[in-house]
């Protein structure tokens, strides 16, 4: 977190720079089938974030040495397009992308029934085309929808959202400015049917009480986003 305490981002009435109240989510819309050559795909527009995800597989797993006898390998990549950020991003994997790819894979492996496809590989590709805070959550959500769209069996979908703290106030679903200048960021990956978690990070400074408040905002928001995911999957392809 940037932690510039002196940028005012919420007024005395609890109105945030983009007009939302503390507990409000940004607008979220989801489409499936946006990548025709993929086995499953989804686009998530979340505020001005724009992410697409493609799923390929189950398919033969090579190189052989990464094959697993008892289950499929889940190969997940998160990437930001060079034009996705105000300052151009140099193409190529960096440490941040690698870490996000790993935690995203860890979250998805917790729900995908990999044992059903021994010796196979399932590829999940997440591309951020426009980034405006919370891209790891947007990407993980898009990947969940794409997996469902590809017909890959899962125990539940993962919904991911990040709440945090700005000017000492706990708020839901940080936007770019709040993420840059706020005091804490708590992204979570939630199973909407059980309320259990498969993904959790935190950066910043939260007292135990603030932590609980942010946690609860994430839980509520997850239910809202989950409904949008379900509707998109019912609605047929783009």
């Amino acid at each position: 977190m940037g932690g510039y305490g002196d940028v005012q981002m919420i007024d005395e009435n609890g109105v945030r720079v983009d007009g939302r109240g503390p507990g409000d989510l940004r607008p979220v819309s989801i489409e499936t089938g946006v990548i025709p050559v993929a086995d499953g795909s989804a686009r998530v527009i979340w505020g001005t974030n724009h992410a697409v995800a493609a799923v390929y597989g189950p398919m033969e797993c090579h190189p052989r040495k990464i094959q697993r006898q008892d289950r499929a390998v889940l190969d997940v990549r998160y990437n930001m397009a060079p034009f996705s950020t105000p300052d151009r991003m140099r193409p190529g994997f960096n440490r941040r992308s690698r870490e996000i790819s790993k935690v995203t894979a860890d979250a998805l492996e917790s729900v995908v029934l990999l044992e059903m496809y021994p010796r196979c590989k399932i590829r999940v590709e997440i591309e951020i085309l426009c980034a405006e805070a919370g891209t790891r959550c947007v990407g993980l959500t898009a990947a969940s929808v794409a997996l469902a769209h590809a017909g890959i069996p899962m125990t539940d979908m993962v919904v991911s959202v990040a709440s945090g703290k700005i000017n000492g106030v706990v708020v839901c679903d940080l936007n770019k400015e709040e993420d840059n200048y706020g005091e804490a960021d708590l992204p979570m990956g939630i199973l909407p049917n059980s309320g259990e978690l498969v993904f959790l990070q935190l950066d910043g400074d939260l007292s135990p009480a603030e932590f609980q408040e942010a946690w609860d905002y994430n839980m509520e928001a997850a239910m809202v986003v989950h409904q949008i995911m379900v509707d998109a999957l019912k609605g047929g392809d783009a």
Partner: protein
Amino acid sequence: MAIPIVPQLLRAHLAELAENDERHDGRARWESRDTELEIGILRNAEGSAKVRMGDTIVYAGVKFQIMTPYPDRPNQGGLMCTAEIRPVAGRNWEPGPPSPESIELGRVVDRGIRESGCIDVDNLCIIPGEKAWQVILDLFAISDDGNLFDAFALAGIAALKSAMLPEVRFEMSDSDRPLPVSKIPTMCSYHKVGGRFVYDADGREELGGDERIHITLGDDGHVHSLQKGLKGIFTESEFSEIMEHAQSRCKELREMVLNAEEAG
């Protein structure tokens, strides 16, 4: 891209179709797939375009950086063009360093734009010898069903045409101004399939075909860039035939760029 081991059956099938002057998806030899162009769809890019040609979908984004002019060209800015085909775009594209195919792709599109002189680099100077704009055109495929070359070239020139120099963000002015783009070079690509060249090959035709030829033409029909790719032999008369088609199709593509509208 990993090489499929046995496209022999596909080759045979395509050759049979070619004998009857047919293509596997019903198109005529010089017919393109449905082609859509949208501009202005990526908020963080200073210029952007999305092209859909059948099931091939690509984006182009323009970003700007401040550069120091080269000592021997103190009044010039620069243009850089990169093409990425990430594994999102298809089953056979793999992660890792750019493949020879994607390097060739980026360089061929880059040359077509650069050699046409459509970007007047003298116009990009801010302070002679000290500061100039560098234009960066990033081409990004998300769905590859063949002929990424033409899709990239079309998205690329449309994104440039729609780009705004971000003078506000760089605290140089209180309004942004359009990037001056004086010409609209466009590219047509031909693939030899079943022994004859066709226009706008799709993924199956690329897989079961031989060499390809890429032609970039300028506003006045001048040739700015040529590239023959892949294994294969062609004759002068084959070349004349595709050049003739390119002269008319490139004009249509130019109109499409000129008439492109901002996305809602």
